[in-house]
């Protein structure tokens, strides 16, 4: 095929026998599944044997880089890592950023598939066509920062995905770190690498990406640059990245975690290739017990969140917690959820100190638990298995103490600001309680109703669907809207564009279609692009229906139906516009609406035969329940 947009190859690496093979990308597949998430899904369908153990050698790691990566499309640097994840048992797609996908494309690979298990610790070094499996014995046992620094000193700075000790010790919510500063795969991507004795994958490319219609392509890129420059809040986003949401600095000016504190810590702002926001920070602690400590993070908000969770008044100590999590490769979100579980269960007397030690909201407890989980010591060995195993081991009532879907903790609690699309997405996302593909105006509180109508259209929902979405007693139908959010994010995940609201706000389905067409030379209008996105998401769901997941796994956590006690008040789950309390029956109806909008079977929650055939996914029909 002509290599416009795409690099044109898929690289296969088997760690068991050392076999390395390069196969050309199939142009028909590229048109059908776009790239990134979409082609990862197709590879997963072909390569993941249903029922395989997530930590078995046969479970592949599939890394995808979409066709716009390597170009100047703003924020086109997202790398997608697909595998069967151990925390949920679901075939999942984690995503990360920084320079890995950019280097992968420049090295000539759209996808890299890693299977097998090495006999001893190894790392993979890809330098254009040269692929080496090298000894990692000397860096096994080191944290992400130490290991990657050692490898970069050996090979010079390049794209990297690495694991820390949490991944090595198969912690079910260990993740991979990209270039030491972006995370990938919260539900155990790190453990999958660890099970393969794979400490890191490095990639450096010297090539470039051509586009089919340079003039037409740059017209679209210039439109996006122009929109960003004219956006009144662009300079704030450049200064503070994702800390700036909806036009106000989320943490205020003063206080221990305000703007002033952030400015003292912030040593450098770091961008992914082609990004006009720069969401990464290098923080350097200026004084005190951690003076000189360097911490890379995608937002100072992670530090503030930790501080609130652990009631840690000293900024340097909260930063230290984030620093440890990133060095060890431990997912902050799952850790915070389990930390809350221990606090709640011990304070209610359901868990005793002799079983779990002294549990308090403070720095010492957080520090201690991170160490115990990472190295699987004592109670940490139980917690390292995640929500389901923890409540089982301690004999706790899951309804009272957990808030997860398919084993993944739900970060967006609808009792806090209402049931928006991100809250709802946690129920239906094939990988479990993950909010990311449910982005919409409901991300911010107080969005006016007309904004939902406008954005549904921008995100590619056809006019008749927009009518259905807006025909709801709650102002908009969260179940129906979520379907189009997912398809919209499937476009971004497949083309390789950053989904952050500070970036995706400048895009529309029309622009994405024109970018794809002018980059690849494959003509595709908005309708065809959104149809491809629908195909991508249906295959993602079908992968997990094949694993045995059904509608029952989309059940909301019981906790959502109990009042949330916070700040001296009780909060009940209400709709986004806070018109009334939501019941189990309401959620059931909204799930029905979601499946209906998808054209899926309401009984099983899986794609129907007709839907799969309509999307050209006939091969998946026989594996549906």
């Amino acid at each position: 095929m002509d290599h416009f947009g795409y690099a044109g190859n898929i690289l296969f690496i088997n760690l068991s026998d050392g076999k390395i093979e390069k196969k050309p990308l199939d142009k028909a597949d590229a048109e059908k599944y776009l790239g990134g998430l979409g082609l990862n899904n197709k590879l997963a369908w072909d390569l993941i044997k249903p029922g395989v153990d997530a930590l078995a050698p046969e479970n592949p790691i599939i890394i995808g880089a979409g066709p716009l990566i390597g170009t100047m499309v703003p924020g086109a640097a997202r790398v997608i890592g697909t595998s069967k994840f151990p925390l949920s048992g679901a075939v999942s797609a984690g995503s990360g950023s920084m320079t890995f996908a950019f280097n992968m494309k420049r090295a000539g690979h759209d996808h890299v598939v890693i299977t097998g298990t090495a006999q001893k610790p190894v790392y993979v070094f890809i330098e254009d066509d040269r692929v080496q499996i090298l000894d990692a014995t000397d860096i096994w046992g080191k944290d992400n920062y130490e290991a990657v620094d050692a490898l970069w000193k050996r090979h010079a700075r390049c794209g990297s995905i690495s694991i820390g000790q949490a991944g090595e010790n198969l912690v079910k919510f260990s993740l991979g770190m990209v270039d030491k500063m972006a995370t990938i795969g919260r539900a155990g991507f790190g453990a999958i690498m660890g099970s393969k004795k794979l400490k890191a994958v490095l990639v450096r490319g010297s090539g470039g990406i051509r586009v089919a219609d340079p003039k037409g392509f740059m017209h679209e890129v210039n439109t996006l640059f122009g929109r960003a420059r004219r956006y009144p809040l662009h300079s704030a986003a450049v200064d503070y990245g994702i800390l700036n949401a909806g036009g106000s600095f989320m943490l205020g000016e003063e206080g221990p975690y305000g703007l002033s504190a952030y400015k003292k810590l912030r040593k450098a702002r770091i961008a992914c290739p082609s990004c006009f926001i720069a969401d990464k920070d290098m923080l350097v602690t200026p004084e005190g017990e951690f003076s000189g400590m360097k911490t890379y993070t995608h937002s100072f908000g992670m530090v503030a969140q930790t501080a609130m969770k652990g009631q840690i008044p000293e900024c340097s100590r909260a930063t230290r917690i984030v620093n440890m999590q990133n060095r060890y490769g431990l997912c902050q979100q799952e850790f915070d959820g389990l930390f809350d579980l221990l606090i709640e269960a011990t304070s209610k007397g359901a868990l005793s100190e002799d079983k779990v030690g002294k549990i308090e909201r403070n720095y010492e407890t957080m520090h201690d638990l991170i160490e115990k989980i990472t190295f699987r010591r004592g109670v940490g060995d139980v917690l390292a298995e995640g929500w389901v195993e923890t409540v089982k081991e301690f004999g706790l009532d899951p309804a009272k103490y957990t808030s997860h879907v398919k084993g993944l903790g739900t970060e967006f609690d609808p009792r806090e600001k209402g049931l928006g699309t991100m809250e709802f997405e946690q129920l239906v996302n094939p990988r479990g309680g993950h909010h990311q593909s449910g982005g919409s105006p409901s991300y911010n509180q107080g969005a006016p109703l007309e904004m939902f109508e406008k954005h549904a259209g921008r995100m590619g929902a056809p006019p008749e669907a927009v009518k259905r979405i807006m025909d709801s007693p709650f102002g908009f139908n969260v179940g129906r809207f979520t379907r189009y959010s997912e398809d919209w994010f499937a476009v971004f995940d497949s083309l390789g564009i950053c989904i952050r609201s500070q970036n995706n706000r400048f895009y529309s389905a029309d622009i994405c279609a024109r970018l794809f067409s002018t980059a690849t030379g494959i003509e595709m209008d908005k309708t065809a692009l959104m149809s491809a996105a629908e195909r991508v998401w249906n295959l993602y769901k079908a992968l997990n229906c094949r694993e045995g997941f059904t509608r029952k796994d989309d059940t909301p956590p019981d906790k959502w139906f109990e009042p949330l006690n916070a700040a001296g008040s009780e909060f009940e789950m209400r709709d986004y516009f806070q018109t009334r309390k939501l019941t189990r029956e309401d959620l059931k109806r909204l799930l029905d609406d979601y499946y209906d909008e998808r054209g899926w079977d309401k009984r099983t929650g899986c794609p129907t035969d007709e839907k799969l055939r309509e999307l050209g996914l006939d091969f998946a029909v026989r594996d549906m329940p």
Partner: protein
Amino acid sequence: MSFVNENNPKILIDLDKCTGCLNCQLICSFTYHDIFNPALARIRIERTVDDDKGASFTDECLQCSICADYCVYGALSRTEVK
């Protein structure tokens, strides 16, 4: 601290503002070679293992300064008004 590089005195470089987005290199290589490839760009952007940053222009730089037009962070700016 801003500075100029002798191969292109028309551009003021402020490394404190550079985020490493590489848009300067991407637009340069695309303008002169029809391909997005930092290796072919006439501006060099470096970041060491220790996070030290560097920027300079190659001998081939034509001082067109299109790189500054695509720097949204203010790390590259024209010393003369366009």
